[in-house]
């Protein structure tokens, strides 16, 4: 090669670099040297020599450039290493430059001037290249990119290889069976580089082999027609090659029409095959081959730097890291990932980090935002259910929801026809597919050889193509995602009437009409046709035979607490006397199968509980132990339902629970999930929903893991979320209260909600006890923090925290062990706690204050004043004018012999103390000692005076009472709900409220987990009945009342204690603030001042902003927990 020849070549390679260094003096005449002498290696060398040596290797390099490269490698002691480093730096820069060119991996020939240079010289210099006859199957091919390959010479050559001469790629392995190349896991066994050889086309002589990473791409693909490779000699130092020398080859890659044709079976890796594959776990040769092919394609796309185009968010194009991996179903072990990543370039760590950092931290929100399909739902037409069937009036958005659900069930004729009824399944691209742009043809041939005709391009016009790199499928058309399953997720926010919506669906389509029609036909044709008529609905069913199909029954699985509510809602909504609802709970139905499949009028709705399903499932499983097949003789699992609806569907979010497994095993044609909170903790919660709905292919654990869980783990949130929303979009409908309809009106106009925090001060006793526990807790936490093993002592610390929270509520709680306390669920309390001990230790002093003599004096004094017990029973409190003070245990005497209600005098004492004012008897204005108080106790038939024990007096309860009294005085017929998470606190409240309010003033109800289903129903019913004369107070435990309940008869709620999770608190409030509420809602949260409760508020705040640990991995969660504990005690 002579310098003239190398000139265009130099431009081709190095133009960018030159531009970069244009500030430096570029001595072009030097840079043109090509084929300088390589100094003998044994010669002693100076740096100068190193420079020239580099320039020997890279002849286009200017002297100064070479020096710069060397400078970068100064750290290497060894000379030859230094040189080789310099060279490799150069080539790395080079390839980066190339990659940085946007979109299409454009090489560097851009200026017309250069092009004209080519035009003159090239054709002449390289002569004609043999136009390869395309294989008959190939109609066209199109360039997608080229790779610079540094090949290794395997045979010495007589002459230097000519620049631009064509090399052939030959695979030596064609006889090899795939099983020799791959082991059972699809991992390759031997080096593929051994099999891929470069052959000098002209001389038909092998010259070298390609490096392993290229061989891995080439080898699996070269035997197929769908990808073509062309290799062109680029650089061999202009000297003859010895074995082991390296030379540079440009590998142009083309996709051919074959790739875009329908695939033969062996490539078509559809889900059915995968199932069998993952089950058998042994890879057939074909599968191994196909797998290698997919990996190779993936690697190929990475090598040529094809970037997928994101249609929806074009501005994100550059951020979007294409992290496609071949999905290995069944056994996705780590080694496998390693292998794939060895082909793919190292992901740019920093980029990804910044990307995830800039993501909105509140990821739950963003997921929801993604699933809020505002536009499509806003313009849904409305379907009004027939008035003969449905007694209630649906709201606008509920009618739209009905349309949506009918469409999801493919009942298009019943759904209101919109202007575009099919637009609903609008062209959503299958998320496994990526869109690619055809790059400009920069193949060696196209650039250099004008005789290389353009005919191929014409055969395939269009700027884009689509590829599913997971399966190795390609298409010119946009692959449209179609959901074929009937059913979906109705995820409307709580209070939007999911129950009503589903009932309207059931009443509109109570049974499988297709099935009825066809079975009628079947009966008609039964005699003259063979038995191969199978209804389409049965085709979709599993192994159930036709007899087991409960074609007219919808099974509704609900939490136990909602059973009766569903029943009531159904009674309200149903107007069709033929439609019945049965409850399947306990032993209510003996022969379910017969009832559902054999009777003429089976119940249209079968209500059951998660517990029943789980119980029956376990029983079936036990009976069929060994066979591992459910026997399905009777009961829920013996039939296939027409439709299943699971209410509060997040119940099955953990798919390893028995309940979840049991529900998954129920058979039905149409499946619906109702939930207001599809995600509770983590993204994987959604997987259960996908699995329940049998959404293929994502219900394959492997798909879900590699497309959602894994990206999420490595913090590629955007990718995971995009995937989730593409999966769910077609099947989920979620509206929130804040959404607006097409007219801009809010979906639901709820009355205002006001949430106030009322700060309550500790009284003296509480303060002392609180400090006692705080000290203990603090020292324990500080110890833990100092030692760094805080979390190992987590349960101890939780007990400490619990104590503090209990003191905030009521001192009496300290003794109780509360089964409803979530924090300690399942954990053993370290030690049963002895309240008396602590209290007496703390209050010895104060009780001793009231010495025996003063006490006796006071008793004498009072007895003198009120000698008769009956007088004690008719005392008047001069503060509240209660007359008489009732019950008598509420009477408190001062030392000076004046009687007050316990609450009044305690209020007074606390008020005066807090204002630092004198404690004088309200009646006689003598100073009183707060410890010198007496109370009245009944001992037998007599009344006795004793020292008043104020240790269990609670400021918070007092605050509640004050509020309730004020409410009662304003309007007596109010209904209020009081929430607490401690059910024993509810007991105390019941007791204290009961002693404070007379039966005529207030009626107190209590609902907690200890009530039976029947008792619950009674309590709720009684509470809902308004009594204009009496205040109605419902004491409600969070656990029992957190879900589903409808308490809209009340417009006031009191939250006695803060919860860790703000969303649970919101949910509780939403029991009251939901559809049907007529009045403004007022909520008061009692928070003790300067206590752990205030800090809990701060943690709530933090949780609100961070999103509830959705995004957190285990470490992150741990860190947060430590943070939270630290927050509590700082």
């Amino acid at each position, binding site marked *: 090669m002579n310098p003239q020849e190398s000139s265009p070549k130099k431009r081709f390679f190095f133009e960018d670099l030159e531009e970069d260094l244009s500030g430096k003096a570029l001595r072009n005449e030097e840079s043109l040297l090509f084929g300088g002498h390589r100094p003998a290696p044994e010669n002693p060398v100076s740096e100068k020599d190193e420079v020239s040596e580099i320039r020997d290797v890279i002849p286009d390099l200017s002297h100064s450039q070479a020096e710069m490269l060397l400078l970068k490698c100064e750290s290497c002691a060894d000379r030859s290493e230094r040189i080789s480093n310099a060279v490799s730096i150069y080539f790395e820069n080079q390839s980066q430059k190339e990659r940085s060119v946007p979109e299409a991996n454009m090489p560097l020939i851009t200026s017309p001037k250069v092009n004209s240079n080519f035009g003159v010289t090239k054709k002449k210099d390289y002569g004609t290249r043999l136009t390869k006859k395309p294989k008959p199957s190939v109609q066209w091919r199109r360039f997608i990119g080229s790779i610079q390959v540094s090949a290794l010479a395997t045979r010495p050559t007589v002459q230097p290889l000519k620049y631009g001469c064509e090399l052939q790629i030959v695979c030596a392995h064609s006889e090899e069976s795939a099983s020799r190349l791959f082991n059972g896991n699809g991992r390759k066994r031997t080096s593929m580089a051994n099999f891929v050889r470069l052959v000098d086309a002209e001389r038909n002589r092998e010259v070298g082999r390609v490096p392993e990473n290229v061989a891995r791409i080439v080898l699996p693909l070269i035997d197929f027609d769908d990808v073509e490779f062309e290799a062109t000699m680029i650089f061999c130092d202009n000297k003859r090659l010895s074995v082991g020398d390296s030379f540079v080859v440009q590998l142009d890659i083309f996709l051919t029409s074959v790739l875009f044709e329908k695939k033969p079976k062996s490539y078509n890796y559809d889900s059915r095959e995968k199932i069998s594959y993952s089950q058998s776990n042994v890879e057939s040769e074909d599968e191994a081959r196909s797998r290698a092919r997919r990996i190779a394609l993936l690697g190929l796309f990475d090598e040529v730097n094809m970037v997928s185009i994101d249609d929806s968010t074009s501005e994100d194009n550059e951020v979007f890291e294409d992290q496609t991996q071949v999905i290995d179903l069944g056994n996705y072990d780590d080694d496998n990932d390693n292998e794939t990543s060895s082909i793919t370039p190292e992901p740019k760590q920093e980029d990804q980090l910044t990307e995830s950092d800039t993501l909105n931290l509140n990821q739950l929100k963003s997921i929801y935002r993604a699933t809020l399909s505002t536009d499509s739902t806003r313009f849904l037409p409305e379907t009004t259910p027939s008035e003969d069937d449905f007694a209630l009036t649906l709201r606008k958005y509920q009618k739209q929801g009905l349309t949506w659900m009918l469409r999801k069930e493919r009942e298009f004729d019943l759904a209101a026809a919109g202007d575009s009824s099919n637009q609903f399944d609008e062209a959503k691209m299958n998320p496994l597919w990526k869109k690619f742009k055809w790059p400009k043809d920069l193949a060696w041939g196209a650039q250099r050889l004008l005789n290389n005709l353009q005919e191929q391009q014409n055969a395939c016009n269009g700027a884009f193509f689509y590829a599913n790199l997971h399966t190795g499928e390609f298409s010119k058309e946009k692959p449209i995602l179609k959901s074929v399953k009937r059913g979906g997720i109705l995820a409307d926010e709580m209070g939007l009437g999911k129950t009503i919506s589903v009932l309207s669906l059931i009443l509109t389509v109570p049974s499988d009409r297709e099935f009825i029609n066809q079975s009628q036909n079947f009966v008609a044709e039964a005699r003259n046709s063979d038995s191969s008529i199978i209804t389409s609905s049965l085709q979709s069913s599993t192994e159930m035979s036709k007899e087991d199909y409960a074609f007219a029954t919808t099974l509704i699985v609900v939490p136990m607490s909602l059973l009766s509510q569903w029943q009531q809602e159904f009674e309200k909504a149903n107007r069709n006397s033929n439609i019945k609802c049965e409850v399947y709970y306990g032993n209510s139905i003996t022969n379910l199968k017969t009832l559902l499949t054999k009777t003429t009028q089976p119940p249209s709705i079968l209500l059951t509980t998660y517990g029943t399903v789980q119980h029956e499932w376990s029983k079936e499983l036990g009976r069929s132990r060994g066979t591992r097949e459910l026997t399905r003789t009777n009961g829920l699992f013996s039939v296939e339902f027409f439709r299943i609806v699971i209410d509060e569907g997040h119940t099955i979010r953990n798919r390893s629970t028995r309940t979840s497994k049991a529900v998954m095993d129920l058979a039905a044609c149409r499946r619906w999930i109702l939930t207001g909170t599809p995600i509770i903790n983590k993204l994987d919660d959604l997987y259960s929903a996908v699995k329940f709905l049998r959404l293929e292919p994502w219900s394959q654990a492997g798909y879900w893991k590699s497309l959602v869980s894994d990206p999420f783990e490595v913090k590629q949130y955007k990718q995971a979320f995009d995937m989730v929303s593409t999966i769910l979009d077609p099947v989920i409908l979620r509206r929130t209260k804040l959404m607006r309809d097409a007219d801009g009106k809010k979906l639901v106009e709820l009355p205002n909600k006001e949430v106030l925090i009322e700060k309550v001060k500790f009284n003296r006793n509480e303060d002392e006890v609180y400090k006692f526990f705080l000290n203990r807790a603090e020292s324990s936490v500080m110890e833990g923090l100092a030692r760094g093993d805080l979390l190992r002592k987590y349960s101890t610390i939780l007990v400490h925290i619990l104590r503090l929270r209990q003191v905030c509520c009521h001192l009496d709680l300290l003794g109780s062990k509360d089964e409803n306390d979530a924090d300690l669920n399942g954990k053993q309390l370290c030690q049963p706690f002895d309240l008396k001990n602590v209290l007496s230790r703390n209050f010895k002093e104060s009780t001793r204050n009231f010495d025996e003599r003063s006490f006796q004096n006071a008793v004498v004094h009072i007895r003198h004043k009120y000698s008769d017990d009956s007088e004690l029973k008719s005392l008047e409190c001069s*503060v*509240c*004018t209660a007359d008489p003070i009732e019950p008598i245990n509420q009477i408190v005497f001062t030392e000076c012999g004046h009687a007050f209600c316990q*609450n009044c005098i305690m209020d007074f004492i606390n008020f*005066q103390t807090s204002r630092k004012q004198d404690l004088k008897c*309200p009646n006689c204005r003598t100073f009183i000692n707060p410890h010198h108080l007496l109370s009245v106790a009944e001992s037998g038939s007599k009344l006795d005076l004793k020292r008043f024990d104020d240790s269990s007096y609670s400021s918070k309860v007092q605050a509640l009472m*004050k509020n309730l*009294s004020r409410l009662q*005085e304003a309007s007596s017929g109010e209904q209020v709900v009081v929430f607490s998470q401690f059910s024993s606190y509810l007991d105390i409240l019941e007791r204290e409220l009961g002693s404070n309010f*007379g039966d005529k003033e207030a009626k107190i109800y209590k609902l907690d987990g200890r009530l039976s289903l029947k008792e619950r129903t009674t309590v709720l019913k009684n509470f809902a009945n308004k009594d204009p004369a009496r205040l109605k107070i419902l004491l409600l435990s969070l656990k029992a009342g957190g879900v589903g309940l409808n308490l809209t008869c009340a417009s006031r709620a009191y939250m006695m204690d803060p919860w860790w999770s703000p969303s649970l608190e919101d949910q509780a409030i939403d029991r009251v603030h939901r559809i049907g509420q007529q009045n403004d809602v007022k909520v008061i949260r009692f928070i003790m001042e300067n206590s752990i409760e205030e800090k809990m508020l701060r943690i709530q705040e933090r949780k609100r902003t961070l999103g509830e640990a959705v995004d957190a991995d285990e470490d992150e969660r741990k860190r947060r927990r430590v943070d939270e504990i630290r927050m509590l005690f700082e």
Partner: protein
Amino acid sequence: MASLPKRIIKRLVSDPVPGITAEPHEDNLRYFQVTIEGPQQSPYENGVFHLELFLPDDYPMEAPKVRFLTKIYHPNIDRLGRICLDVLKTNWSPALQIRTVLLSIQALLASPNPNDPLANDVAEDWIQNEDGAIATAREWTKRYAKPN
């Protein structure tokens, strides 16, 4: 301690004080419209004085807030109608009832105390020229505290 104002109202209604009325406001049971007749043989005789009374949240631990709405010339009542009375301030006790408070105010009208003044100019006038001050008080009563 339930239904405080109701009990108070009951008491006020069942045990009325001559010359004093107190009616709770329709919307707010803690707000009372009060009238006090000027005590006989005082400069305020034959006058009917309107007052407002409000029970604060902390009532009865805290004293009710009372204020004259009718203009009055009195050394212990200022231009804004605020009243200087110990039981409304430091000597308040939760055992005191509204009626006792109102009675105390009536008594204050009967015996002004210029040595513990709230309205300084009035008090000075009262001390230096008691007759003139009393005359002014009478005149104001006639002018402002007309019974309807």
